[in-house]
């Protein structure tokens, strides 16, 4: 046996404030007695990007959950202050990258309100069609992916396959599959290409078929129902105070859709359509509502293709876009929920301040409340059911 000598410590004076980080770590260790801390992410397939969830577990149950966001924070609110209005659309395309076109609409609409420009009817119709197509693309992917998160692989492929048809349509018009950057203040960059309308009608048939497939394969599946029914229930009043919006809130029985109830925008008041709600508020309800809304969107697209007016696609707009002094708040019903821009203009070529209200940010902020007491496998189901895009959280 040899004596074990303690190694000599270098005699360096450590300033008191440098111990702060160590102290932070110690606090966490002390709180852990008996529980387990599980780190979900930042690279988790259920997070659509880089969301980190720190959950404290007692056995298999969650005691507390803390979502840590900001891994993709790009500072768009600051960046808009050094861009001109037409340049800002490039940025806001990348907020919710699954439905980029729908992001552009409220911002452009706000700028048009401030400038007093009324886009022509045809432009408004094409905007509405493309917005609904983005909604279909987003939801069809969701319908497949939600099944993937509860363990069924095949529907995910169906989801990606059917979304491809819709993306091809968007690409044919705008030239961009994910980031169209197609809206202009006063209208659109281009008109629809030849033969697009009949092609669009065909694709809508595919969308109806896809919905039927998902209804039978996923929503009607006993295992899926067991995994999602009464999981992650959001009561309507709690959801509203957290700012949960869109399909997530409608799945809690709140009959509120900004396309119908908000200030009129685009051409939704000229269409015959229905707002779908579900009283349950659980993950299954969220799946079911989005399934119905996909069909409803496809119906709306078909109606608009029938009613599509002829005419110009751009209003008369000055060559150099200067937006008069003023403020405007514009909110729209995006696939993920309420998307809003508070634009402050001081009469320059670029905005003075833009507050971006993105849907996923508030949808995810309910997670600490929602995840308490659920089991670990249900975390994934709940995350998938809320359906967020990290770019929409982090901005």
């Amino acid at each position, binding site marked *: 046996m040899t004596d074990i000598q303690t190694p000599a410590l270098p005699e360096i004076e450590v300033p008191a404030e440098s111990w702060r980080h160590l102290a932070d770590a110690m606090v966490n260790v002390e709180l852990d007695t008996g529980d387990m801390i599980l780190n979900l992410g930042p690279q988790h397939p259920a997070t659509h990007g880089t969301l980190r969830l720190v959950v404290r577990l007692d056995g298999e149950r969650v005691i507390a959950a803390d979502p840590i966001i900001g891994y993709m*924070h790009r500072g768009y609110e*600051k960046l808009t202050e*050094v*861009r001109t209005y037409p340049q800002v659309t490039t940025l806001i395309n990348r907020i919710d990258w699954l439905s980029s076109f729908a992001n552009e609409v409220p911002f452009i609409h706000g700028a048009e309100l401030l400038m007093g420009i009324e886009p022509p009817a045809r432009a408004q119709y094409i905007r509405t069609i493309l917005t609904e197509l983005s909604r279909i693309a987003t939801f069809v992917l969701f319908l497949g992916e939600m099944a993937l998160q509860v363990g069924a692989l095949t529907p995910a492929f169906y989801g990606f396959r059917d979304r491809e048809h819709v993306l091809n349509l968007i690409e044919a018009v705008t030239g961009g599959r994910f980031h169209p950057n197609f809206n202009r203040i006063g209208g659109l960059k281009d008109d629809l290409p030849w033969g697009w309308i009949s092609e669009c009608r065909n694709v809508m048939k595919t969308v109806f078929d896809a919905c039927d497939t998902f209804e039978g394969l996923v929503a009607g599946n006993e295992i899926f129902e067991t995994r999602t029914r009464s999981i992650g229930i959001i009561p309507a009043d709690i959801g*509203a*105070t957290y700012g949960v919006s869109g399909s997530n809130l409608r799945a809690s029985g709140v009959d*509120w859709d900004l396309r119908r109830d908000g200030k009129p925008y685009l051409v939704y008041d000229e269409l015959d359509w229905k707002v779908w709600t579900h009283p349950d508020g659980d993950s299954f309800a969220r799946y079911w509502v989005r399934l119905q809304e996909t069909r409803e969107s496809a119906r709306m697209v078909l109606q608009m293709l029938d009613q599509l007016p002829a005419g110009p696609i751009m209003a008369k707009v000055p060559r150099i876009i200067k937006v008069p002094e003023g403020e405007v708040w514009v909110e729209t019903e995006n696939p993920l929920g309420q998307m809003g821009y508070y634009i402050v203009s001081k009469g320059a070529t670029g905005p003075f301040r833009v507050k971006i209200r993105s849907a996923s940010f508030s949808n995810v902020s309910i997670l600490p409340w929602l995840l308490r007491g659920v089991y670990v496998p249900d975390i994934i189901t709940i995350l998938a059911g809320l359906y967020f895009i990290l770019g929409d959280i982090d901005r």
Partner: protein
Amino acid sequence: MGEEPAPLDETEQALLDRLEQELGDGVIEHADMFGTLVVRVRPDVWRRAAEVCRTHLECDYLSYVSGLDWQPAPREGDEAGGDTSAPVQPTEMTFGVAGSEGRFQVFAHVQSTRRHWGVTFKTDVDEAAPRVDSWVSVYPGADWHERECWEMFGFDFEGHPGIRHLYLPSEFEGHPLRKDFQLLARSVKPWPGLVDVEAMPGDDTPTEGEAAAVEETPAEGGPVEPPTEDRADD
């Protein structure tokens, strides 16, 4: 805003009347902003305004809480440096809808999912000691919004249960959305803007930088040897 302010419609007037009934002289100013009622309240009734909305106006839905900095961003030539690429904004401080007393404001929007109306609230924040009451006790969803506002503007939310960084790392210094915080990307490398400094391939006309370099070249003639010695280690 030189134009005549737009009149309030019936719903907005009713909402405003109820707010004035509950808050008294806490309501400083109001305006219509393209169909949205904007109400500026005194900072001491900020939380009370949220409670009134929640209980009396049926506004059950919190859309956002955020901040405003009305000070113009410093331009080039100012001491703080500046950004020449950004659109030119007015250099004097002006305030938007419903006015402001100073540089900072907090604003928030609440809505009713049943009645489909909404109110935007604004309140002034003191520049020297920026603090405002927290809304978390009324609308729990204000938690993240106020954390974002705290780190981006440096406003203190009194009564917030656990204010800490939301997006930025905890050792981040400064408040990025304040106008005097220069955009980091621009301070590292100036934005080239419209001037394309690099010559295109096949473009013979020298750019400004190249023209200066040509003048400095010694006119002794003969091919210039490339400096090979530095590469001897490779």
